[in-house]
């Protein structure tokens, strides 16, 4: 995958990608004011006089936002800076009431870390994170409500964001997608951000440049505010192609800010580049340096759940899951939680060791349950069959009460009616027949009814055993224990 190549007329190019992800910190109140962060309120209803930058209003910092930034840093193995500074980034915009954004420039709260990408071929790749800093979100401008006016809503103004800046370590649209996916998984696992890209809780600025293999870094363009993983991939593809075309035509790339238009499938220069930005950063004199001690970091560390990489490794080594299944199960915290609860319930019901049933449990979750959920358009948290109910079904297979085939029918009924597996098996009389005498009787009858096939079998066509098994199962309505049937049938056929 790392050999993503853009073929130009004059040779091959590679693309160099870095991402700046803005992730909204999960908190009740804003970074510097006590107004709510909740989504979807009336315009300007979640605005304090601090957020509206009334004269003489002052910022005070929300401890939870500090804690979440530190937890995020720890989750990517980053260095945590016990001393950091808030700076003002000065620029004018209608939805930036202070005329500056409070951010961290020289001394961010989190330093270098690493995110491990899980690539499709089962390989991994390490992508460096340069830094994470805390900053305020801006308000929202609406340009289409009135012919002459832009309407400004400050509800989001002052909401805490983490800006997570990667190193330019990615070399393909897929890697960028995998990075975002993994980052999203991590912040959702630890509850630092809900990762909701549709609502804008996570958005990415994508830095793209191209070069011929072996050359130094090319001039980059920044594609602003891309709000889905798919669009990030698309934007990189078209932007890299655009840059290659320019270079091959003998042109040069202007370092600029661009927008991705998913409808037209192109990037275009932002109009507001008429003047180079000069943000005039300086330490915010309304705030003191942000400081905390090791005890605070330790407490943040202790509050972290098991992280996806560790969980995946444990699923593989302790439970014997294969790489693919383990990856899929840990990709969402909710799926992993469901699987673990499900496995625990199976172990509880069957008395077997986790490793003995883990693979079966994983297969059931990933194929049966996910298949049904996908068809119904439901998420795992909305599943009508819970972990314990599912475990009951799996236990019935394990102890031989029902066959795997019958189990699929039972599951369908469970899914649509919410009834328990045992009830369904009981009501529909689906219990597997494991009575040797009864099965023998049926086998004898089947053999007697098919003398031709018996002759063929005995003359060497041993594959016909399948035919006899099928007949027996048919006679029993699928309820005969298939293992037992096989075991009893062979000696009788062999005579």
């Amino acid at each position, binding site marked *: 995958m790392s050999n993503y190549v853009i073929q130009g007329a004059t040779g091959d190019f590679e693309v160099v990608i870095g991402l700046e992800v803005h992730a909204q910190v999960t908190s009740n109140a804003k970074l510097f004011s006590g107004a709510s962060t909740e989504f979807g309120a009336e315009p300007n209803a979640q605005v304090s*006089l601090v957020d*509206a*930058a*009334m*004269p*003489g*209003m*002052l*910022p*005070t*910092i929300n401890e939870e936002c500090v804690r979440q930034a530190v937890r995020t840093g720890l989750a990517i193995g980053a260095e945590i800076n016990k001393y950091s500074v808030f700076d*003002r980034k*000065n620029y*004018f915009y*209608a939805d930036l*009431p*202070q*005329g*500056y954004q409070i951010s961290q420039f020289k001394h961010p709260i989190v330093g270098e870390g690493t995110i491990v990408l899980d690539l499709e071929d089962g390989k991994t790749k390490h992508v460096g994170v340069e830094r994470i800093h805390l900053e305020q979100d801006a308000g929202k401008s609406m340009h289409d409500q009135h012919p002459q006016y*832009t309407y*400004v809503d400050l509800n989001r103004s002052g909401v805490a964001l983490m800006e997570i800046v990667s190193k330019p370590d990615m070399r393909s649209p897929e890697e960028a997608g995998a990075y975002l996916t993994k980052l999203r998984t991590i912040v959702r696992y630890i509850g630092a951000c809900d990762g909701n890209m549709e609502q804008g809780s996570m958005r990415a600025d994508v830095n793209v440049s191209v070069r011929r293999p072996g050359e130094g870094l090319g001039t980059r363009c920044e594609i602003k505010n891309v709000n889905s993983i798919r669009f990030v991939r698309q934007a990189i593809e078209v932007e890299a192609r655009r840059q290659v075309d320019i270079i091959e035509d003998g042109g040069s790339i202007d370092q600029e800010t661009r927008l991705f238009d998913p409808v037209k499938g192109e990037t275009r220069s932002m109009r507001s580049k008429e003047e180079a930005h*000069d943000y*005039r*950063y*300086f330490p915010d*004199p*309304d*705030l*003191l340096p942000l400081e905390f001690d090791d005890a605070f970091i330790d407490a943040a560390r202790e509050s972290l759940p098991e992280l996806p990489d560790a969980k995946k490794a444990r699923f593989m080594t302790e439970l014997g899951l294969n790489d693919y299944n383990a990856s899929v199960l840990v990709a969402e915290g909710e799926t992993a939680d469901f699987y673990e609860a499900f496995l625990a319930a199976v172990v509880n019901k069957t008395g077997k060791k986790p490793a003995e049933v883990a693979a079966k449990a994983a297969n059931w979750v990933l194929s049966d349950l996910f298949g049904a959920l996908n068809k119904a358009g439901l998420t795992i948290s909305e599943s009508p069959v819970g972990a314990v109910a599912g475990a009951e079904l799996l236990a019935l297979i394990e102890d031989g009460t029902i066959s795997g085939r019958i189990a699929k029918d039972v599951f369908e009924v469970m899914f649509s009616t919410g009834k328990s597996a045992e009830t369904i098996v009981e009501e529909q009389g689906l219990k597997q027949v494991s009575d040797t005498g009864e099965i023998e009787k049926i086998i004898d009858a089947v053999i007697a009814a098919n003398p031709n096939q018996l002759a063929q079998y005995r003359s060497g066509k041993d594959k016909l055993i399948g035919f006899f098994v099928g007949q027996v199962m048919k006679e029993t309505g699928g309820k005969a224990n298939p293992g037992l049937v096989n075991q009893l049938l062979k000696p009788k056929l062999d005579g």
Partner: protein
Amino acid sequence: MTDLTNLTIADARDLLKKGDITSRELTEAHVAAVDAADALNAYVAKTPELAMEMADKADAKIAAGEQKGMTGIPVGIKDLFATKGVHTQACSHILDGFKPEYESTVTQNLWDDGAVMLGKLNMDEFAMGSSNETSFYGPVKNPWRAKGSDKDYVPGGSSGGSVASVAGYCAMGATASDTGGSIRQPAAFTGTFGIKPTYGRCSRYGMVAFASSLDQAGTITRTVRDGAIMLESISGFDKKDSTSVDMPVPNFEAALTGDIRGMKIGIPQEYHLAGMPAEIEALWHQGIEWMKAAGAEVVDINLPHTKYALPTYYIVAPAEASSNLARYDGVRYGLREMVEGGNLVDMYEATRAAGFGDEVKRRIMIGTYVLSAGYYDAYYLKAQKVRQLISHDFNQAFEQVDAILTPTAPSAAFAFGEKSDDPIAMYLNDVFTVPASLAGIPGSSVAAGTDANGLPLGLQVLGRPWDEETVLKVSGVIEEAAGFTAKPEIWWR
């Protein structure tokens, strides 16, 4: 008849307590004095109805035995402090019509103690100025005039309305703010007592920001004791201001023992400026003699980086101001200038061009320049380093001495227009006050004498961080020794 407006806060407090006067009477007298003093142009908004309402509440409090130092005392409020529902414009055109939906902590503290608001006081626009000539509402006139002259003098700045109202007997005390000398210099120009406490002592919440790392509220009163009473009322920790410090507020008045025996008073040699008027040098020398006479030990000290304080200040303050004043953009409050067919940027540029005065624009421009790409290290970072050195100078000095004595300003009040064409000459007014602002230490100006023309002169007392008590104590000794009884001739009524 005794004119109630001549009383000190301390005297009025005692008379109120005894029931000899009521806050209503006291307030009525002041409301009348305010109306009679329009010629001073000290008030930009008067609130007589509110004042009477507050006076009656104060009288009820006193009757209920809940009197505090400021209960029932009529005061003026610098237009920099947000007062809920009342004109708050920092004397700038750009805040036209602004009436905040909130109250500053400093004024709230006063109202909680039962003080009475007479109105909002004139000031240099956004507190940028040393002569009150930059106010959108026109300059304040100094109640003092040179002997035998009817020429008008500046009251100093930026707290020009504060000092004029107090010196002109139309407020018993006034809130003020000091960024580089805006309390102390005008106090010196008007024979009043001004004190700027330690940075972090008074909350900046609801105080229109000029330069956040320097701005500090304080008071203007006619006596040191009044200053102690009023400062105690406005001081205190406020969790709404991240730079407010959680320190107990002492009983400042109790510090006024008059006893400075054995105290060490530093005399910074760098404050002997070449070309400083002889009378200022003489007054300073007199102050030194007073200190010795009171039993203090006078020590020569060095504050080697004094000379660099002003240029440092004129980087740091404009830099912060350029950012603090970015919020005045015509979107959420105040002035909005629309340009026919113009866009948002046109509105910003037109609004800010029309709304800010020349000095404010000049400082925004300087601040923008020193922070801009390529200049940050050379100017802003350099200045913050020199500021560290200046602060270090004071730390060193306070290892040797308990307080520092200097002149407040290098001259007495000057006439209008005298320095307004030369920004640097104007900035030099703050040469003695700016270093303490940069270091965040407490300082006062106490009336100590007059010049040959009969205009007041002040001495400045500086103290260790959080040691306002020593500043007040030493100020009290100077006040006592100086026996400053001169009063401006009342020409404005």
